[in-house]
């Protein structure tokens, strides 16, 4: 138990003692769920989202725009965007960002898969939604160069002052960027 992230020795002990107190059947169900977790949940063939089918629910949903692809680093980022309930397109999960320091190069990510999707002409817009770290930006730049030869629109999510923040407390780098990349006012009042 203590090998799990965020779980220390004391928490592990508490969890184990708790499981011992439960009914045998309940614990059985619990452990079956764990086994299934590994054997049944795979990555979607298209976007590498988690799925128990070869194609995930988002990629196979006819109600979603499959021509728009939002590129994210990982599953958690995908879930964060899904939670907003504002995006009706599809995704592409990279599985990380390029960082030679951590031994991650382009071939360790699902970049070829994304290019394949674009090559097949299935995509007309690619949205970059990587973190604003140097590695996230560099990965976006790499993809941008790779996508340049295709007839596809490349966009990036807006960045700037957080909604509901008071300007005086915004950090200087974010604020500087917001000023540099300001928008026509009518674009800022658009919803959804």
């Amino acid at each position, binding site marked *: 138990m203590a090998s799990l992230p965020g779980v220390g020795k004391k928490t592990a002990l508490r969890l184990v003692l708790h499981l011992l107190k439960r009914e045998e059947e309940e614990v059985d169900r619990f452990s079956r769920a764990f086994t299934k977790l590994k054997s049944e949940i795979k990555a979607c063939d298209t976007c590498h989202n988690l799925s128990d089918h070869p194609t995930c629910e988002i990629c196979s949903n006819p109600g979603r725009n499959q021509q728009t692809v939002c590129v994210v680093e990982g599953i958690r980022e995908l879930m964060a965007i899904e939670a907003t309930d504002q995006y009706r397109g599809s995704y592409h999960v990279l599985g990380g960002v*390029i*960082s*030679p*320091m951590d*031994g991650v*190069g*382009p071939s360790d990510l699902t970049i070829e898969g994304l290019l394949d999707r674009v090559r097949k002409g299935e995509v007309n817009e690619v949205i970059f939604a990587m973190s604003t770290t*140097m*590695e996230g930006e*560099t*990965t976006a*730049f*790499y993809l941008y*160069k*790779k996508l340049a030869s295709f007839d596809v629109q490349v966009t990036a999510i807006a960045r700037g002052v957080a909604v509901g923040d008071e300007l005086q407390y915004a950090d*200087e*780098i974010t604020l*500087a960027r917001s000023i540099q990349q300001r928008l026509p006012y009518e674009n800022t009042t658009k919803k959804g």
Partner: protein
Amino acid sequence: MILQSLSLVNFRNYEEASLEFSPEVNCLVGDNGAGKTTILDAIYYLSFCKSYFNAIDSQNIRYDQGFFLIQGAILKNEETDKLHCGVKTGQKKQFRRNDKEYGRLADHIGKYPSVILTPNDIDLIKEGSEVRRKFMDGIISQYNKPYLEKLMEYNRALSQRNNLLRYFSENRTFDEESLEIWDEKLIELGSFIYEARKAFVETFIPGFNGLHAEVAGGAEQVSLAYETQLDTKGMAELLKGARTKDRQLRRTTCGVHKDDLNFLISDHAIRRFGSQGQQKTYLISLRLAQFEFVEKATGVKPMLLLDDIFDKIDDKRVAALMRLVSDHRFGQIFITDTSGDRIPALFREIGADLKVFNVEQGSVQLQEEVADGQEK
């Protein structure tokens, strides 16, 4: 900006001490190991939230004690601010201004600036280029807000690129596109850093030359030069030209991380051609020029901390220096010396408002005016 008072508890060799300062000149006199420099370092703490000499906070706690405290009252913009710095073993450093804790220490640094001159400054001449880049970067980041951020990003991109070069060589592969994305970052950031450093050196030189002439009485001709590969070619061209070499050596061989400052005396390197006294004079002038720069950038006169600066320079220069620093241009001064009356006598001659403190085994005594009279 005036430091009115300072009190220490368990800081290095001080069990307890409290001092009331003169707004002009404060001399700390005592033998080796008495604790003169410790007072300067405590003032440095109030400016930079850390020690100049020992970066590990807990090592500045008095032997066998569990905590230290430094408190000061600083007059700035006609208001007295109370600064409080406390370090307890095993706990986060506490730094408060007017009883309010800072969220980030970075918010404090720069508000109450100080410039320190110590014998360690000789490293600027003797050591490698890194020390001199740090000197430049330290001053530039005080007035150029994005500079430090970009510098850190540059170093990160550099390290990423070097890792990639090492990876290529270890796995006998090469991928131009993977390398180019880091080149792109280095070009953008490196060019920014180059421009900032160039502009800095250009504005720094006249002030430095002027101050040096005053201290040395114009006895020697000195100069300062920014040495950089970017002077002849742009960052993009440099990286392209060095690509084969970079791949062989598995690291990035050109860019602003190779920059240097050349310290010259009569057009020769002062490291090799300057005497010890000339080197010291050069360093003093550098720090004083830094002072004027910081003052311009922050709008307040920093506290000037002079540690043992009389070693190796002749009496004429000492006198010129003392005249210079007491000339109100340099605000409040804190100065240490081992010999009892050399500095006090000089300042008395100049007529500066002076306080002399006798430092002895971790205790500080204000020297009585009566004693002053006897010396004359």
